[in-house]
């Protein structure tokens, strides 16, 4: 028998599990194990030196792989086709507070316990069947999924899981599970979330107080105001409103970045949403005597599942920018095209306004960044709008870009995939 055959499983496995390094290593171990078995039962077919060389090579492979398994940062468990635990690495044993040897040969479904959900945990079974039977790869990120593993003492810890099929010589032989304890990650995320929540309240409270007292002054609750007093009080009110808007925008961005925002996609008439956004901006549009044109490339625009608040915020931000940075009396063109081949929508907002200087274009999506001409033309801008839009767009799997010429105008583009937005549980709406 050709000694090369013994190494063939190694090669075939490494090409069949392309994904994670853990899977590769594991596959290598399995292959080496099979190689060793082959060696044991076929070695008498070889000449003495061939067998010795092969044994040495295999032993080296096994030693290397064992060393890797030992040093790995993630927990690794391999199960056979009939759900028996075949392999457990050191880190898995530590996380589960069990000696790897104690788990060998046990049915994983009985030996290990998982739960889902923090507040009302329910028993969770690892989706091993689709992996073992159909070669599916399943990734369960704990921050999203809320999955916890139970250690030997019954203590729960949050995990991020990766399940892949174990394929040896083209045949499904079981599953590879890698998992990490994400307690730290979760704690950081919770600290960030709770900071946002506390900051939200702390900032809003004094602002609400100022705003309400100013309103009472303007309502005449402290007596009639002279013209000058009214004028000054109006200015205070404007400043307060700006601060409130800025705080709201900052909080929105913080929520989006913390992954807290609820995404509730429903079939949306995109064209109608754009019309509604334009309608909501009528006062500003009329004040600057703009002409708004809404161009839709085809009549049959499919209703894609989108979260209305998120879509609104993105569209409204860009259209608001177009209005604010346009020269009075100019046209603003909003286009909506449906690219059937590329399976996406392209929406663009074109203005004939101040444009963006070439050398400042690459910073436009940075938080608080404002081009020099923008600061002059619209002193009260926050520099946060584009940052928020970019995060929203990229969150839904779209792309955002622009073309601009200083003094001539800008056109901003963004895409929306036809499959629409994926739902996310979250705990706060984008627009509150």
């Amino acid at each position, binding site marked *: 028998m050709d000694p090369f055959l013994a190494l063939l499983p190694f090669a075939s496995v490494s090409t069949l599990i392309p994904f994670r390094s853990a899977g590769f290593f594991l596959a290598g171990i399995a292959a080496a194990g099979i190689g060793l078995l082959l060696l044991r039962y076929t070695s008498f077919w070889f000449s003495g030196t061939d067998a010795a060389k092969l044994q040495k090579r295999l032993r080296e492979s096994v030693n290397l792989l064992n060393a890797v398994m030992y040093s790995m940062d993630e927990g690794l468990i391999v199960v056979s086709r009939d759900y028996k635990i075949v392999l457990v690495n050191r880190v898995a044993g530590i996380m589960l507070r069990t000696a790897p040897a104690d788990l060998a040969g046990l049915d994983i479904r009985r030996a290990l316990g998982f739960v889902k959900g923090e507040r009302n945990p329910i028993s969770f079974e690892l989706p091993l069947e689709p992996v073992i039977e159909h070669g599916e790869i399943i990734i369960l990120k704990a921050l999203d999924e809320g999955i916890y593993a139970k250690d030997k003492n019954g203590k729960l810890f949050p995990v991020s899981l990766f399940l892949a099929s174990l394929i040896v010589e083209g045949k499904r032989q079981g599953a590879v599970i890698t998992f990490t304890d994400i307690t730290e990650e979760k704690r950081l995320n919770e600290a960030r979330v709770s900071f946002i*929540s506390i900051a*939200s*309240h702390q900032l*809003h*409270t*004094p*602002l*609400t*107080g*100022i*705003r*309400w*007292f100013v*309103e*009472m002054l303007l*309502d005449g*609750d402290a007596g009639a105001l002279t013209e000058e007093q009214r004028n000054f009080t109006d200015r205070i009110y404007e400043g307060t409103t700006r601060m*409130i808007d800025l705080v*709201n925008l900052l*909080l929105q961005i913080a929520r989006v970045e913390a992954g807290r925002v*609820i995404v509730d996609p429903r079939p949306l008439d995109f064209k109608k949403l754009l019309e509604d956004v334009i309608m909501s901006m009528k006062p500003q549009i009329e004040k600057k005597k703009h002409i708004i044109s809404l161009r839709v490339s085809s009549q049959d625009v499919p209703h894609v599942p989108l979260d209305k608040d998120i879509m609104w915020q993105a569209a409204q931000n860009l259209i608001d920018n177009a209005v604010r940075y346009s020269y009075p009396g100019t046209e603003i063109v909003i286009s909506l095209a449906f690219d059937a081949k590329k399976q996406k929508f392209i929406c663009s907002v074109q203005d004939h306004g101040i444009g963006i200087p070439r050398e400042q274009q690459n910073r436009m999506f940075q938080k608080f960044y404002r081009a020099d001409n923008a600061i002059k033309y619209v002193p009260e801008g926050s520099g946060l709008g584009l940052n928020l839009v970019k995060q929203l767009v990229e969150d839904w799997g779209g792309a955002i870009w622009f073309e601009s010429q200083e003094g001539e105008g800008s056109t901003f583009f963004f895409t929306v995939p036809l499959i629409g937005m994926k739902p996310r549980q*979250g*705990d*706060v*709406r984008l627009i*509150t």
Partner: protein
Amino acid sequence: MKNTEEQKQYHILVVEDDVPTLEAIGHKLSTAGFVIESATDGQTALGRLQGGAYDGVLLDLRMPVRDGFWFLEEKNKDPSVVSCPVVIFTNLAGEEQLRRALDLGVRGYLKKSKHSIQEIVDEVRTCMETGKCRIDY
């Protein structure tokens, strides 16, 4: 200016820990013909509620000592005050808080940052007079 003699004078307990906010809303409600008493934490508020006769409570959620949720839980245990309508007014954003408050039986839920002070007063009046109380989602 409304003619306050024609309207029923509603007795409202305003529970709010931020003094300027409390002063503002207290002043505006009084001017609008409401009879106001106040408390700056949940514990004091519960005591006031149990000791008096109120048509409604305007309740903040985040407060020191005992917060709005504690107040609601305790109020629900007391048959003498359980049915007194509560309108939350808060700056706390979050579905969780809203759901929890609704589960505890509040009638209205107003987000302070969304309304002018006159609107808050109008919402309280509408809630008291018609039982239709606004919920800010």
